[in-house]
């Protein structure tokens, strides 16, 4: 048996010994429910989301309205579906901004470790990190106006240092490894090494962190729209649904409970998924399991 053949034979056996972590499955299932609901809402919702029917307001869940109706008689299930779209879009774009800016910054800092560039980048990141994220997000949206776009930017800015730090930390230890040394000896520039060798090796970490940041983004979006600084009406948003239901809790608890549970389950699902991914992808945990 050649070496190559032995590797191939060993591979399926190895994965067979390591079943996918249960938290990953639960997390995936929970998140998938909301992603599918959001995707489906582009094509179909049980009722038009801005269809008001005031005589039929505050109805408890029924066959006609599985999750009941809100204070304007709108179908809550339809609003949750479209609201999922808002939450996911805001959080996804915010994570995108954080990654797109944070990762290159982290790579650059690691490539020039100990240098002036490293200092400037990391201290600037510390500065952003030092502010309470949600308070500054409120400030940004209050100054530039309340809208989904500004919410994305505000949440996105606070994702930058998270990714920059993570990338730099992981890249620093990689820079000491032999294969990087080999690449340097071969004459590759720091930028090429970062892109071709460092980045693929920190990708796992970034995916795990991205999932966690995604769930925090959903929470932040809900927080911003709860105080009226996220997506503006008539765009449904879970945070605003919660805020508007506040005075009706004693009349029709489901109006507040349902968007609240939607936020809880999405965030829980994404966190479980992040945990599961870490177990699956982190080499340290992988070794400990085998």
């Amino acid at each position, binding site marked *: 048996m050649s070496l190559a053949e032995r590797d191939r034979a060993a591979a399926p056996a190895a994965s067979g010994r390591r079943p996918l972590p249960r938290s990953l499955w639960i997390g995936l299932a929970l998140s998938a429910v909301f992603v599918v609901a959001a995707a489906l809402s582009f094509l179909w919702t049980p009722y038009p989301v801005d269809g008001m029917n005031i005589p039929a307001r505050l109805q408890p869940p029924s066959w006609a309205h599985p999750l009941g109706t809100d204070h304007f008689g709108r179908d809550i299930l339809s609003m949750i579906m479209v609201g999922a779209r808002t939450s996911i879009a805001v959080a996804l774009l915010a994570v995108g901004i954080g990654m797109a800016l944070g990762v290159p910054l982290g790579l650059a800092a690691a490539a020039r470790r100990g240098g002036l560039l490293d200092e400037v980048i990391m201290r600037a990141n510390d500065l952003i990190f030092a502010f309470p994220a949600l308070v500054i997000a409120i400030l940004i949206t209050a100054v530039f106006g309340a809208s989904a776009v500004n919410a994305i930017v505000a949440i996105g800015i606070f994702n930058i240092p998270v990714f920059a730090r993570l990338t730099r930390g992981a890249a620093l230890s990689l820079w000491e490894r032999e294969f990087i040394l080999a690449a340097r000896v071969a004459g590759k520039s720091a930028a090429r090494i970062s892109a071709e060798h460092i980045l693929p090796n920190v990708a796992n970490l970034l995916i795990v962190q991205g999932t966690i940041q995604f769930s925090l983004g959903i929470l932040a979006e809900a927080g911003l729209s709860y105080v009226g600084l996220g997506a503006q*009406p*008539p765009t449904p948003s879970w945070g605003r649904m919660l805020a508007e239901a506040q005075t009706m809790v*004693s009349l029709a608890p489901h109006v507040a409970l349902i968007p609240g549970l939607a936020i809880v389950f999405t965030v829980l699902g994404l966190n479980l998924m992040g945990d599961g991914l870490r177990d699956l992808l982190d080499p340290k945990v992988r070794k400990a399991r085998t």
Partner: protein
Amino acid sequence: MTKPLRMIAASALALAAGLAPAWAQRSDVTVAMQLEPPHLDPTGGAAGAIDSVLYANVFEGLTRFTESGEVVPALAESWEISEDGLTYTFTLREGVTFHDGTAMTAADVKFSLDRARAEDSTNAQKQLFAAIDTVEAVDPRTVRVTLAQPDGMFLFNMAWGDAVIVAPESIGEIKSRPVGTGPFRFEDWVQGDRVELTRYADYWGEAPALEAATFKFISDPTAAFSAMMAGDIDAFSAFPAPENLPQFEADPRFQVLVGSTEGETILSTNNAQPPLDEPLVRKAIAHAIDRQAVIEGAMFGYGTPIGTHFAPHHPAYVDLTDMSAHDPDLARELLADAGYPDGFTTTLKLPPPSYARRGGEIIAAQLRAVGIETEITNLEWAQWLEEVFTSKNYGLSIVSHTEPMDIGIYARPDYYFQYDNPEFQALMEELNATTDAAARTEMLQDAQRMIAEDYVNGYLFQLAMTTVAKADLRGLWANAPTQAVDLTGVSWAE
């Protein structure tokens, strides 16, 4: 139980029974409201919350409003009006003192009126004093006011909170330590929380039943509901969440007073901004709106539909709601006639009250049904005053105009509607110069028709006054002829 013991017990019981009413008879009250006054000078600010706390309680004018909106004598016990309607001679009440102990005399009245109408005055309603030419203190108890032209509304104007009599010595500190002539004196203001008043012992009129009163400021409707339910407050004036009122009504511990306010709730329209400068477009908007749905959806049914800018409880009111009946097909037709067959997009800027936020969402949906898209922006009051009221940077807005008899604002082309109709302005000038009641009524009705025919704004509903109070609290105003929480007649049932 031995005999002596039983006797002691019996007498103790009798004693307790005798004392019980005395304990139950409370003499203080805590009234909550949503907005806190920015300062405490009713003659130097537009905020209605200032009047809510101070009107009739701490400050009084020459005349005053009663609960039904009638104008009755206050500090002036009587007056004479000259034949030509230009000279008002007021006789002041005897024995009126300010809370600092000094006597209230004609000189104070002259000072107050001159201060309010001065060039540099910050009075929010300077038009109330516009007709005044001179104010003379004839003797300590007589004031003669000469008008430049007859003003049929003069006695009404003097009843406003903006026309109360202030003490010259107290002006420096009036914004934080108001000194008036009313039955209650200002005690303390804990900013962000409450204002405390206590009974003024040397009040000229009938002493109020209450010894102390506290105004608490609770802006959050949910907190308002819990504070009321928990019994932390005795009454909430203008309760902010109409959806909770049925619960209070069903609860024997509470009473709900439903009255009328002077608040015409309107879809304010920027008459100078295209395409809203087009009367046909405004007419289309008026027909696109279903007022009943707005009243039901935003106010849970509390409110009276209006078709013009006038209070329905006023004798001169004309019901013009038919002129803007809900008819989406007609609205689409009108839009096409105006040259907007596919509709257009405009802004809808909403202040915080739920009538505006919820009403705005409903109206946006109704306008969308005829092709008009609105971009909704929710604003805080300060931002709203800046962007909409002052800079006139808006297309549509929703707000309740709570001043009494304020149809005159349509004669001001620089007012934020930017409605400029010389015919209406001439009518208002004529109205101001007329004192004959029948002629005035006719002119007021013409004015109502004129703005309804021009579809200046979308006329929605008269804001209801909803006060929640503990069941045994008596004497609170159900109606709000002006922004006031008059405590002079308030007491606890025995």
